[in-house]
């Protein structure tokens, strides 16, 4: 059980933050393009789900599981993990409320709507994810 990577998007599709821990395969396209593709895919899945019913939570393929959490302000927290991980909505909510809001939104020197430059946010997020019960440090 492991965490592959994490994306943070704002309501306009700007990727505010990206970190990876165990990622074996790159997308084969530049990072900017990958963020746009990921955002576009999430936007389409959201509109697809809202046509049927509503409340997209996660999807899984044969190798990974993508967890999704969106706030009413349009901030999207996306985490790719292994298949053995159950619902982690509260983890994503914690990343938003205790890390992003506390360290970035409440910081007057951090401009919103751009990639987060704060080193404190990056290191706190990294240590939080590494402390999660389903994060194992093995490389396999």
């Amino acid at each position: 059980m492991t965490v592959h990577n994490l994306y943070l998007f704002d309501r306009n599709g700007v990727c505010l933050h990206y970190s990876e821990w165990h990622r074996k395969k790159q997308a084969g396209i530049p990072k900017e393009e990958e963020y746009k593709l990921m955002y576009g895919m999430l936007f389409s899945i959201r509109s697809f789900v809202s046509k049927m019913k509503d409340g997209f939570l996660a999807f899984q393929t044969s190798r990974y599981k993508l967890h999704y959490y969106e706030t009413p302000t349009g901030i999207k927290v996306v985490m790719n993990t292994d298949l053995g991980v159950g619902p982690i909505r509260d983890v994503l909510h914690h990343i938003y409320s205790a890390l992003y809001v506390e360290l970035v939104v409440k910081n007057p020197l951090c401009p919103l709507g751009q990639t987060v430059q704060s080193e404190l946010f990056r290191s706190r997020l990294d240590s939080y994810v590494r402390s999660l019960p389903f994060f194992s440090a093995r490389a396999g």
Partner: protein
Amino acid sequence: MAIFSVYVVNKAGGLIYQLDSYAPRAEAEKTFSYPLDLLLKLHDERVLVAFGQRDGIRVGHAVLAINGMDVNGRYTADGKEVLEYLGNPANYPVSIRFGRPRLTSNEKLMLASMFHSLFAIGSQLSPEQGSSGIEMLETDTFKLHCYQTLTGIKFVVLADPRQAGIDSLLRKIYEIYSDFALKNPFYSLEMPIRACRGKATVGWCSGTWTLFTQPSWTLGPSWCGCFVGGRRQPCWPHKSLQPPRRLCSNCSAWQWC
């Protein structure tokens, strides 16, 4: 009903078969007085709620009926425009029923193609080697399961989140597809499946999921899944007085509806 719908998508992304089982729709009927505290807007020939979510009425719900009479798109049953009717204080108090609008065939086609692309992107953005496309999509109210065959056909099932055994159902639907569609000499590949013009429902029979099909009642020899005496036969004119029967593809037993 635990299974909401079944979709079969061909390798180009086109919808070739679709089946909707009965799903309880969340509807809310309320009496309103002038002025209406919901903001309604016209979208795609339907009147939708744009703002003012409350009491079971969500944004995106459509006006289904006014004063008990079903509306016809943007017009009421007597042909007046819904927005005009609701803008006139003389018509109040009025009772309006809101609910999630039913998907039209066009919308289903678009959703199938959209899912086809999302399936491929899910595999491309994978952080692991050798990932397939989206096999399961989870939401609050339903779970979407997808099985892609080696030939590129996708079987998509929308079911209750707590429903188990969907993987075997998907394999079974693949089996039924190859039996009923592929072995039909008149069926062209990748085209919409119309083999049996009778109805089909998904159900549970002797410990497994199966498809119940009703034989076609049309006249003349047409290929259909009628198992009479254990052999497939052309479907000759059936007496319309015969009660409808369903064929369970698992135990091949006729079941009375």
